[in-house]
Structure formats: C-alpha cells, structure tokens
C-alpha cells in the first residue's frame, strides 16, 4: 500500500487531473507522436524551439495517470531550457525511474519531477513515465517520426 501511495503521489494525481500545457501549439516548429501499444497511451508533442531554447511546448493525447502527469510535468520543467539541458533532465529522470533507490542519487535535484521516484517499484509502469520523454527526444531530433515503447 505504501508503494501505491509513492506511485500516485499528490503531485501526480494533481497533474493527471489538471494537466499543464495540455494544448496544441499553433506556432510549433517540431512535433512528434508517442505511442505505448501495451496500454494504448498516445501522446502528441508540440515544441517551439528558437536558438536552441525550448520557447514553448504543449501536448495532447490520452493515457494513464502516470503518462499524463509525466507529460504535464515534463513540459513544465523543460520550458525555457536549452536542448542540452532538456537532454540532461531526460537522463536524470530516466535514471531515477529505472535504477535502485541508492544508485539513483538525490531525486530532489529533479525538483517536481522527483514525484516519479515511486515508479521504479512498478517496472511495467516505467514506460508510461518515460513515453513523453522519448517523444520529446524525437521531436528535438526533428525526425518527426512516431516513437513507440515497443
């Protein structure tokens, strides 16, 4: 039960209910689609990038609470960041949700994203949390292709 409370932390429940940046971005110059066939999670990401900085970002789609909250918190935390900074966040986030608690370092360095530290106890949910991030990478690489977790 305590595991469950760690998974569905208040921040996650809040972002699931009221996702931030949940909109199609008219001025986007990068988009990508992400899909998790296992559970049907589907996300479209809109990024407006200028001089290597993520000026604005939005997302749409449907998915579970984890993927929705992950997209919401990700978009909030990468806005205004450079591409390299976003990439660093991706790696830190990925490490937090996939490695042992001890090895993962201090989650507080990730700010609000630390709310996802409970995901590591639920291996099949890791893909839900990382789907928006993989989609972001695809968008930044500008290949515009569909990413899939499978």
């Amino acid at each position, binding site marked *: 039960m305590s595991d469950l409370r760690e*998974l569905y932390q208040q921040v996650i429940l809040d972002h699931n209910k009221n996702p931030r940046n949940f909109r199609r971005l008219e001025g986007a110059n990068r988009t990508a689609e992400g899909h998790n066939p296992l559970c049907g999670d589907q996300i479209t990401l809109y990024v407006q990038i200028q001089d290597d900085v993520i000026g604005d970002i939005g997302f749409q789609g449907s998915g579970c609470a984890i993927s929705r909250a992950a997209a919401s918190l990700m978009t909030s935390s990468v806005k205004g960041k450079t591409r390299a900074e976003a990439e660093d966040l991706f790696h830190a986030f990925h490490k937090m949700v996939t490695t042992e608690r001890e090895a993962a370092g201090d989650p507080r360095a990730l700010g609000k994203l630390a709310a996802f530290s409970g995901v590591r106890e639920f291996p099949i949910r890791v893909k839900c949390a990382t789907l928006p991030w993989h989609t972001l990478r695809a968008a930044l690489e500008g290949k515009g292709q569909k990413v899939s977790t499978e």
Partner: protein
Amino acid sequence: MTTIGHPIAETVRQDPAIPFDVERVRQDFPILRERAHGKPLVYLDNAATSQKPQVVIDTLTRYYRAENANIHRGIHYLSERATEAYEGARAAVARFLNAAEPREIVFVRSTTEAVNLVAQSYARPRLQPGDEVVISAMEHHSNIVPWQIVCEQTGAVLRVVPINDAGELVLEEYERLLGPRTRFVAMVHVSNALGTITPVRRIVELAHGRGVPVLLDGAQAAPRLPVDVRALDCDFYAFSGHKAYGPTGIGVLYGKAPLLEAMPPYQGGGDMILSVSFEKTLYNVIPFKFEAGTPHIAGGIGLGAAIGYLTGIGLERIAAYEHGLLAYATERVGAVPGIRLIGTAKEKTGILSFVVKGVHAHDVGTILDQEGIAIRTGHHCAQPVLQRFGVPATARASLAFYNTRAEIDALVAGLHKVRETFA
C-alpha cells in the same frame, strides 16, 4: 493402453445432482494458494490464460519422467506408449467437441495457428479477386489479421458484421452481408473483450444456406460452454489448450474430414508425408498431413488430461456456475459508482469489461494488482471492438469456475480503493 490423463480425472466426475462445490474444485489448482504482493491471489484474468489443475501438472511431469519418446516412428516401448497417449488425447478432444472421428482433430500450436492454417490452406486457393470473407466487429486480432493477409494475397475483400451498443452481433446485417461473392465466414463464438456469445447455430445455418463454409473461433467458448460441432454443423472450430486449463503451445483445429482431405498441407516436413523422393512426395492422411515435424507431444497429452478433468466436472455445470457468478459480479461491479460496463449482451459468459470514470484502465490494473487481484487492462487484442465503444482501453475481469463470490467482493473493494485514490 496408457490412460490418457490422470486416473484422478475420472474419480472427480461429479454427480450432476450434487451442487457444484467451488471450494473442492479450488483444491485442484495449486496456484490458487499463492499470494501476490502479500495478499491472497485473486486470479481474474482467465480469458488471457487459465490456471492448471494438479492433474494436468502431474500428467506433464509423468510424461517427461516416464513416457518421453518421439511418436509415430519408434518401434520401441516408450515410443509406442507416447504415441498411444498422444492419440488418446486426440480422441478425447474429438469426444469433447463431439466430432465424428478423431482424424478430424488437428493438433496445432494455438487458435492463432488454427485460423492461419484454414486461411492459407483452405481459403487461399479458393479465393479470387473480389470474393468476400465475412468476419465480425468483435473478433480477436487472430481472427482478423490472417484474413487480411489472405485477402491481400488473393485480392479478396474483408466484410465486417457490425455489433450493437450491447455488443451483440447484428444478425440482419450479417444476413445482408452474405452475398453472391461470399466465400467464407470466420466468426468468434465467445468474444474475449465483451463476453458476448454469438448465435453460432444461426450464423452457420445462414452461411450454409448459401453454400458458404464457416470457421468458429472457440478460444473463449470451448472452456466455458458445451460445444457440439456436429450440432452446430460448423466446418472448422478452433481453440487453445492454455485457455482450457491445459498447457500453452498446444491448440486444436477441428475440420470436417472431407474439407481437411481436400486441403493442401500447411507446412512441409516429417510426419506429414507417406513417402518422399525428389520426384514425388506423397502426403500423409489427415490429420497427420497438417502436423509436420515433431509436435508438442507433452502439450497434447496435457490437454487430454485437462479435457478429462473438465468433462469430469461437466461443461454444463461449469457454464451454470460461471453464469451465476457473472450475474453476481455484474450486479456488484455495476453498482460501484462511476463504472461503465462495456459489453452487456443478453447472452454472455463470465467476462466483465468495464471502464472507471476518470481513471485509465492501466491505473485500475495497478491498484488492483497491489491488492493481489489479477485482471487484464488494455485493448485485449481486439482494438476494433474498443474503437466501436469509443474507449482506448478497458479493465477486464474474466471468471473461471474456481472463482468465488468472495473474490468478486475483493474486486469490488479494490474498485472502491481505485475511486478513493483518484477522488
């Protein structure tokens, strides 16, 4: 003669007059004593795969311990025993489906392979561009994709019978779709996503009225309902061992003998031939013509044991018990606020698909899992069905005759927990 199945399988044959004793039946399934996340396991994912009774586990062990040999080829003692056990299992399956003869039973890997076999071996040589294959809107992917492939290969066209809001086949539409170009009908008997029992007798009758053969996908029906292929008069019937309390990797294709005889082999190899030379190869008789290579011998024998076990209890009693449990589950789950049941056909089996308002099925699954409750979430390999109901995923509890009302109560308590978490 080797007994097929364990002797115990015969002793459990219960007097139909004695009420079904679920607690006694549960004793036969050792896995039901396991715990999940520290809670008693509540296994409600039976449509994905069923658990195995001790007699099946024992039969597999005994086969590998005392009977293992290749079949149909050895002249030695063990090979003879293994062959007898394997062919005994085939005869048991024939009785189970009320087939006319054991040679109408082809052992395959699964329902999936059975459908592919019929699509490639029966339908493909007969289909011309513009011909039509009819399926329904609630098929499992394994009864869609093989037909799409054969349509692509031949230029034939797939026609899909719609379902109504309850998840029932629209028979008038089916009748309308049966046209002069219809060459084949492939239809699910019990939908894995909705639990709907389709009117198979009528489906076959209408098709035969136009000279069109019918395959029924019995993956969910065979473990849940008495099936009589001769009464149904279907031309092909497919099911999987692992959903019928038997091992994985073994499945059954029933086919009427004249049809099977007229079909070319599906795969080439050993066992499916009578003689081979580089000039000419003579194919074996049915069913061996379709069983190239060393088959899943242990699986076949294990399936025979499962069928012995099921017929010992009696499919009528299994169906009756599950029906009562479904009624209870439908009422209890349906009464949880915010639950929408997907699939409310009048004729249905123990499959309960639902969505929880404001909560994704995946989150429902995770919370229930923490309570030790195993359900399936997602699209259940039947994406077109979910599209029909406008939901990306559902949660699905699928019942077996070893499930209890107390387990349904646990499910309901878990659903309340879901609602609390996402309040």
